[in-house]
């Protein structure tokens, strides 16, 4: 074998084993070396040998088997659909806020007498805004893709087969045919399947449509975007002597401490909505996920509202300073604002909403739901 041939052989082997788990590379490398040398001794032409062996990536795939995927066919449709929804309702608001802010700053304080002034202001706004918009769109896009993928990844890795319960047709209408053989084999592990195992068809009232969950999902994503990129929107806006005065409700100085808890609470809700979406029907999984997420959300809510410095501590003092000489009654009402009282009221409301939500879910699951033994 010439140096040149050996080089081709090593290149080929490298291309196969680089796609394989580290632990198998050495041994498979040896196997391939043996094989290629044998084949070369037969034909004497390295190009011919490698041609016969075919694409190294295909070879590696054969070695790997079919296991290598992140999101399997069972979840793929739902995953992809949800990804589009989440990206759509996070990226567009992020871009709008970014440009909105840039325009607000670009036009703020500028004298707009001539067309030239206008053009300058627009150009200034766009050029200032563009960089931060691109950066924010990328960050939130990655964040959205990451969080949706993570949730589905957990479902996939933990082999949580929400779809095995009634409603499988809702989530995997295209994949069931492809999947059946493999899945039957898995079910056959130990326990023999009998027709009694067939759950009754879900009651129409137990079916969760995409429409039911999408409202919740869109709300959570939009709210997350607002909290991350524009927490200032949750403020009192006063127009005092041509100047816009903003007094935020939240404690924006401590925002980096508060935001993670806030988002965690929202994303637990998101995970719950996704479980509903994937299950497609009220059942035991949905009920458990609903109870867990509601309890966690209340705990996080209590932490946020009662323990963390959630509210802007200077809200009333700032407001009373600004309102001096302003007669508009509406805003004066906010002078009675009391963070502790508000926390308490909000927490009670959260608890009531959570209780109602758990109640409805439990009722639907027990009354109409199937698959809950």
């Amino acid at each position, binding site marked *: 074998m010439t140096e040149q041939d050996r080089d081709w052989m090593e290149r080929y082997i490298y291309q196969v084993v680089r796609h394989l788990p580290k632990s198998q590379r050495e041994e*498979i490398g*040896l*196997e*391939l070396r*043996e*094989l290629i*040398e*044998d*084949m070369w001794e037969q034909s004497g032409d390295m190009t011919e040998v490698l041609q*016969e*062996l*075919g694409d190294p990536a*295909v*070879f590696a795939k*054969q*070695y790997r*088997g079919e296991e290598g995927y992140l999101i399997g066919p069972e979840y793929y449709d739902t995953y992809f659909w949800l990804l589009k929804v989440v990206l759509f309702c996070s990226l567009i608001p992020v871009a709008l806020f970014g440009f909105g802010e840039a325009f607000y700053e670009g036009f703020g304080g500028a004298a707009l007498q001539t067309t030239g002034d206008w053009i300058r202001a627009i150009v200034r706004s766009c050029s200032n805004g563009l960089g931060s918009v691109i950066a924010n769109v990328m960050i939130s896009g990655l964040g959205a893709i990451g969080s949706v993928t993570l949730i589905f990844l957990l479902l996939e890795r933990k082999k949580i087969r929400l779809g095995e319960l009634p409603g499988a047709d809702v989530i995997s209408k295209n994949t069931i045919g492809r999947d059946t053989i493999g899945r039957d084999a898995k079910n056959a592990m130990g326990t023999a399947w009998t027709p009694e195992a067939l759950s009754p068809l879900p009651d129409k009232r137990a079916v969760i449509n995409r429409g039911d969950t999408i409202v919740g999902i869109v709300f959570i994503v939009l709210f997350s975007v607002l909290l991350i990129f524009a927490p200032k929107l949750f403020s009192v806006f006063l127009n005092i002597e041509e100047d816009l005065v903003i007094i935020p409700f939240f404690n924006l100085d401590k925002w980096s401490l508060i935001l993670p808890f806030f988002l965690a609470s929202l994303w637990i809700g998101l995970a719950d909505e996704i479980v509903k979406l994937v299950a497609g029907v009220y059942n035991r999984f949905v009920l458990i996920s609903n109870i867990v997420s509601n309890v966690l959300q209340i705990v996080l809510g209590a932490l946020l509202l009662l323990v963390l410095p959630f509210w802007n501590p200077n809200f009333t003092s700032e407001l009373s300073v600004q309102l001096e000489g302003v007669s508009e009654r509406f805003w004066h009402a906010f002078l009675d604002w009391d963070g502790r009282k508000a926390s308490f009221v909000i927490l009670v409301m959260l608890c009531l909403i959570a209780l109602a939500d758990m109640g409805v879910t439990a009722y639907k699951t027990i009354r109409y739901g199937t698959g809950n033994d």
Partner: protein
Amino acid sequence: MGEERDLLEGLLLELRRGVLVLSVLSQMGEAKYGYALVQSLAEQGVSIDPNTLYPLLRRLEKQGLLESSWETGGTKPRKYYKRTIEGDRIFSELKEQWRVMAAGIEQLLGETE
């Protein structure tokens, strides 16, 4: 026409895939190395691409039907595969099933002629 040929090739591939394990197990009563197996199968008209066979050998080993050992005595190291006792059992069971199936299919095909 090309489509029909693709279809036929796909179906043939599936047909062959079904008997692949049986063919390989049949040859592994004595220890053999991979390429010798490729050749002996090809001589008997059951050709298998190395890029299918080598991964299959590893899989069968993982499933406990084959065992392997590296021979380092010769001109170069060679990996030999051989049926395990469990492999023997599975092989004779598969052989039995194959004969029943082949007879059945033969009969089915005979009816159409």
